[in-house]
């Protein structure tokens, strides 16, 4: 069964075609600048060395997806015909309170995604555009939606509510939703393979640290708390996002600097975090380099970043009354041994003992703590696309057996 996994933005999309259940990626690619005369389509098939790219006029998502299908079935030679695509899985950012699981796409599900547009005004409309374009390009092929928020729907109300008038939750669904759910779910699902213990008996703290970053407390396989909130701005310090701040800063800074609400929001989302403190970059690789060369502000940015992640870890140890597994994933989490070491150096009170060699020199999915450590520390490369393909496969298989 071949499953196409799509992640549609407002003017770009990324895709991977999986052969399931082998979980083999047959082709992966992306299109940028949809809606222009010089849209760029790059793709790479399994085993290919370089990548192919073409520039052409692509005016909307439907044209973009037609080109994807054309590349998959003709130009790349990966498939012989469109009939070989059994299903399509879409990443959808916000499922609101309606979706705790992935779902086959029906009119009702689409309406629910539409209902959540206000909660994710940049992402959900683009996701919907991709879904509707795909329906036009591959009519009759089952499609599934996999939500970034779904995994965290298991949070109890005392964790997901903000301590503000309750009526705001009732009226406008103001609450914490959390993000990176598909990633946290994937990496936590890998834990039993590494530690040889059932996830149902483990307390896991998952640190997804990429350009955006979030920490999740996962108890018995279910998310019980996570650092991102109603939007991805809450929580730990990130590349260009501030994470948690005193809400009164908005009133004070806006008055002092004469900022409009949109400017303040842009400041917190795009000019803060590592970039805001270092004045140099939001990219952890550059910060680490500059820190090594003696840049005091890059060192400060690094220390703040590390401290704020560690504080969340400490909070979640308290929230779960303990921790068995601490795991790191995503761009920074997978590739910064220095950050992992600095975090773990100050968690020795938990009986955590890092294995410096495994931390510094190992590659890929691995344990980086010593066998004597009371907390197992792991690095697990994330794979959200695979998770989407798996969910889609399960949903479509269910659909098929039901139809029989």
């Amino acid at each position, binding site marked *: 069964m071949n499953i196409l996994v799509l992640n549609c933005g407002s003017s770009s999309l990324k895709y991977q075609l999986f052969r399931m259940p082998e979980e083999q990626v047959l082709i992966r690619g992306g299109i940028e600048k949809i*809606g*222009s005369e010089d849209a760029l389509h790059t793709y790479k098939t399994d085993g290919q060395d370089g990548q192919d790219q073409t520039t052409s006029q692509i*005016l*909307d998502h439907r044209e973009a997806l037609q080109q994807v299908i054309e590349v998959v079935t003709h130009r790349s030679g990966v498939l012989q015909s469109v009939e070989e695509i059994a299903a399509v899985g879409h990443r959808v950012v916000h499922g609101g309170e309606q979706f705790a699981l992935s779902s086959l796409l029906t009119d009702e599900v689409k309406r629910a995604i539409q209902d959540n547009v206000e909660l994710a005004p940049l992402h959900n409309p683009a996701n919907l555009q991709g879904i509707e374009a795909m329906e036009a390009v591959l009519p009759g092929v089952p499609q599934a939606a996999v939500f970034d928020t779904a995994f965290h729907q298991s949070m109890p109300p005392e964790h997901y509510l903000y301590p503000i008038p309750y009526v705001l939750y009732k009226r406008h669904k103001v609450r914490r939703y959390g993000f990176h759910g598909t990633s946290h779910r994937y990496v936590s699902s890998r834990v039993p393979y590494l530690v040889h213990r059932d996830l149902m008996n483990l307390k896991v703290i998952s640190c997804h640290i990429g350009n955006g970053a979030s920490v999740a407390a996962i108890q018995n396989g279910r998310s019980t708390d996570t650092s991102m909130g109603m939007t991805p701005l809450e929580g730990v310090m990130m590349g260009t996002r501030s994470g948690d701040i005193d809400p009164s800063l908005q009133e004070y800074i806006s008055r002092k*600097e004469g*900022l409009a609400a949109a400017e*303040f929001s*842009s*400041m917190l989302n795009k*000019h803060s975090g590592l970039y805001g403190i270092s004045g140099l970059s939001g990219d952890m690789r550059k910060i680490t380099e500059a820190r090594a060369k003696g840049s005091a502000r890059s060192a400060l940015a690094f220390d703040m970043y590390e401290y704020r992640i560690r504080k969340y870890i400490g909070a979640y140890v308290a929230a779960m009354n303990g921790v068995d597994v601490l795991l790191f994933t995503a761009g920074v989490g997978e590739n910064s041994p220095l950050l992992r070491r600095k975090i773990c150096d100050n968690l020795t009170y938990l009986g955590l003992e890092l294995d410096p060699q495994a931390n510094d020199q190992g590659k890929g999915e691995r344990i980086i703590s010593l066998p004597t450590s009371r907390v197992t520390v792991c690095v697990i490369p994330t794979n959200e696309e695979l998770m989407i393909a798996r969910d889609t496969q399960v949903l479509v298989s269910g659909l098929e057996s039901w139809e029989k």
Partner: protein
Amino acid sequence: MNIQKIGIVGAGTMGQSMAETIAGKGFEVVLLDKSEQELEAAKLGLEMSLDRRLTKWGITDAEKKSILSRIVLGTNLQLLHDCEVVIESVWESLDDKIDVLIAIEKEVGPEALIASNTATLSITEIAAKTEHPERIIGLHFHFPVERRELVEVVRGLKTSERTVESAFHFIEMLGKQAVQVFESPGFITTRLMLPLINEAVLIFAEGVASAYDIDKAMKSGYGFHIGPLEMADRFGLDTVVDMLEALFHETTDPRYRPAAYLRKLVRGGRLGTKVREGFFTYDEWGERA
């Protein structure tokens, strides 16, 4: 209608502000004016405005570059040939606007929306001499366009329903709020604002209150974001006089007669924010000194 490219004729303050905002929404923009000298000034103005937003964290360096890369400056009207929407924002003179609209009409495709950004003139009259007055409409943006959500969509006598629909669609794509106005001098906003400014000038000239207190009263008492005298400075006092005269001329209603003191300031070259001195003084960024 698939809208990708917008033409703006007239690269003055308003033309620049529209170009910056529209390009910021991801559209390609062609910004035209008569001479290279005016284009140079426009280029400088755009850079300064974007730099200012950058220092206020409203955009990033990359966003500034990408906005500038989407704005093509030129003097040749032929550059408009593939624009789906063209907005003129040349000097507020009936003859100039008519000439420009006729010239635009010759260049663009039959489906293109042609709009005037006039604040006071009659869309019906501006459109009368064009070949297809049914596709001419008024789109009254407010300065600074980036910060002002409102656009008055002004229907001339012959403006077609289809043109109005396209205009509303375009304004929605820009994320702005449209209100429909059936042509009348000054529409909603200018008709309400100009007499208020004029009365504020009279209160000041009669020595009833200081400029600072007049603005403070309207800000604190009525929730105005900026007071009427600062607003006059920001419009440009010469522009205020011109607009009042246009309304006075059109309606012969004395309530639009420009206050003598306002004329005096204009004659003395105290034109407002753009020369850093009007009712108040301003720094090089246009901030109150």
